Structure formats: C-alpha cells, structure tokens
C-alpha cells in the first residue's frame, strides 16, 4: 500500500503538465464530431494523448477507419523502445502483471520508472500501478469533463497551457543527464528529429529522431559506458 501511494505521488507533476491535454482532447473530440462516450472510450483504450489528437483530426476529415488506426500506430511506435527498455526491470512481475503493466506504459510512466530505477534500483508492481492508475483515472475524468464542458474552456495559449507538456518533457530529458553518453544522444536525436520534422513531417520525426539517437548509442556508446 505504501509503495502504491508513493507511486501515486509520482503522478502529481505528470497530472499538472499533461492533464490540460485531457481537457483539450475531450473538447476537441466533441468539436470534431465524436460523442462524449466515444471520446471517453478512446482515452480509456488508446490512452496516448498525442496519438488521440491525431486520431480526432482524421475523424473530422472523414478518413477511413484503417488510416486512422494506422496513424495512431505510427505516432505510438516509440513505445516499442519503451517496452524493450522497461521489460528489463519487471522480471519479477507475473505474466498477467506484465500484460497489465505494458498497457499503462505511456511517455511519463516510462520516464518516471526509469528515474525510479536510477534512484532506488527498481520498483514494485504496486508502485508502478500507483502511478499508472492515478494518472489513468485523471486522464479519463478530464476527457469526460472536457467533452461535456469544452465550450467553457478559455484559450489555452495566453496561459501557456499548451506548452506545459513540452517543459515537462524537457525536465525529463535533463533528469537523465547522469547517464553515460547522454549529451551526444540528445544532440543526435534533436538534430535528426528536427530534420525529419522539416522533411518527412510529423509524426514520423519522433520515431526517426529516436531511432537515430538509439542507433548512435549502439554504435558509439560502448566506450562511453566503459569509461563511466
């Protein structure tokens, strides 16, 4: 129970930075022709903010179902890397616990578990679910709230709300600066993602930029790890 609560506390900065996007998603989903139930279903089952936003834009354009599903898949390809990375730390989970845990493996969940491994060497299923279920409930609740009352929301831009997630992600990037080869990986991923953003376009810049950094680390990061 204690570790569940300590995991839940980890969700607080995530809620502050990502929660406005739950409201925004609910509001935009209804704007784009989804019902409140469909918006909630999407948050409950897809559970990945950026891909949900891409999905509802395509709904509004009346794209075929398979295009929408495939676009969601492309935006979420980065989770393959999270899955491979986190899998190393949950060897103690049962098969069912693993199957459940991977459902909750979104960006902040992944980053906070990696930080927890650095800090305390590992984490329990209770800790993981404390964070996961807390943020999941808030995300779902805010989707419904946004869908019901979206018309009352103020313009997020003057309040900087649309930018909070970017600031939080930057904070996460910085929090991993103790790792060997961190700066070269950040530089390569940043350059590759900006290049891909300008040429191939969004959302491919995420997968391509990440791949560049990861392959670079595989090719040149060994010596750095040995020297550290």
């Amino acid at each position: 129970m204690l570790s569940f609560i300590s995991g839940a506390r980890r969700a607080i900065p995530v809620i502050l930075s990502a929660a406005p996007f739950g409201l925004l998603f609910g509001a935009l989903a209804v704007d784009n022709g989804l019902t409140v139930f469909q918006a909630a279903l999407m948050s409950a089952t897809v559970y990945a903010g950026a891909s949900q936003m891409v999905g509802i834009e395509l709904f509004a354009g009346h794209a075929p179902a398979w295009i929408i599903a495939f676009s969601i898949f492309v935006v979420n390809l980065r989770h393959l890397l999270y899955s491979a990375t986190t899998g190393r730390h949950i060897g103690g989970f049962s098969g069912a616990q693993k199957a459940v845990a991977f459902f909750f493996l979104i960006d902040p969940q992944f980053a906070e578990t990696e930080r927890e491994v650095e800090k305390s060497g590992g984490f329990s299923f209770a800790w993981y679910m404390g964070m996961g279920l807390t943020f999941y409930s808030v995300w779902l609740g805010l989707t419904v709230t946004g869908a019901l009352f979206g018309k009352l929301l103020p313009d997020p831009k003057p309040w900087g709300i649309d930018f909070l997630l970017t600031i939080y992600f930057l904070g996460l990037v910085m929090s991993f600066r103790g790792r060997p080869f961190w700066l070269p990986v950040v530089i390569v991923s940043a350059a590759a993602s900006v290049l891909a953003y300008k040429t191939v376009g969004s959302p491919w810049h995420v997968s391509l930029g990440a791949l560049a950094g990861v392959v670079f680390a595989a090719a040149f990061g060994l010596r750095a790890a040995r020297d550290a």
Partner: protein
Amino acid sequence: MPDIYIAILAGAFLTYLTRIGGHVILSRFERIHPRVEAALNAVPAAVLTTLVAPAALTQGLPETVTLIAAALAALYLPMLGMFALGWVMIVALRWVSAG
C-alpha cells in the same frame, strides 16, 4: 459496428502491440548484447528529446527562450521548480511578444 468504433478499437489494439512488442521481441534472446544494452540505456533521452526539439526551434522566440532557460534551470532546481519557472516564463514572454 460503425467505422468510428473500429478505428478507435483497432488503434487501441495496435497501440497495445507497440507497448508489449518491444519486450516480446527482446525476451526471445537469452543474453542482451552490450550494444543493445547501450542502445536501451539511451532510449529515455533519445525519445523524449524528439518530443521537445522541434517545438524548441519552430514555435517562436518565447518558446525557444523558455526552453533554453528551463534546461539551464534544471541543472540547479528540482523538477517542480524548473517546471514552475518555465510556466511563468512562457506566460510572461508570450504576453510581452503579443503586447
């Protein structure tokens, strides 16, 4: 079933595949090669950077300045302090640049 439900549920299914797929592939190997190990250790920085870099360079001057300041602040402040500073800065700089 209307298309909209097929799109949502198929999207959810494919998303779950990405979340479990990396582990399923990796767990087929007995030993993890040191290069793969080095690659996996780079995953947090590599992926999260791609979620920040284009925004830092393409959205505008207030956004660029805020992220540079926040990155420097992160060297000295805990996460929430850096986050609060970034929030105040983006609101102030957007207000100034809109003024």
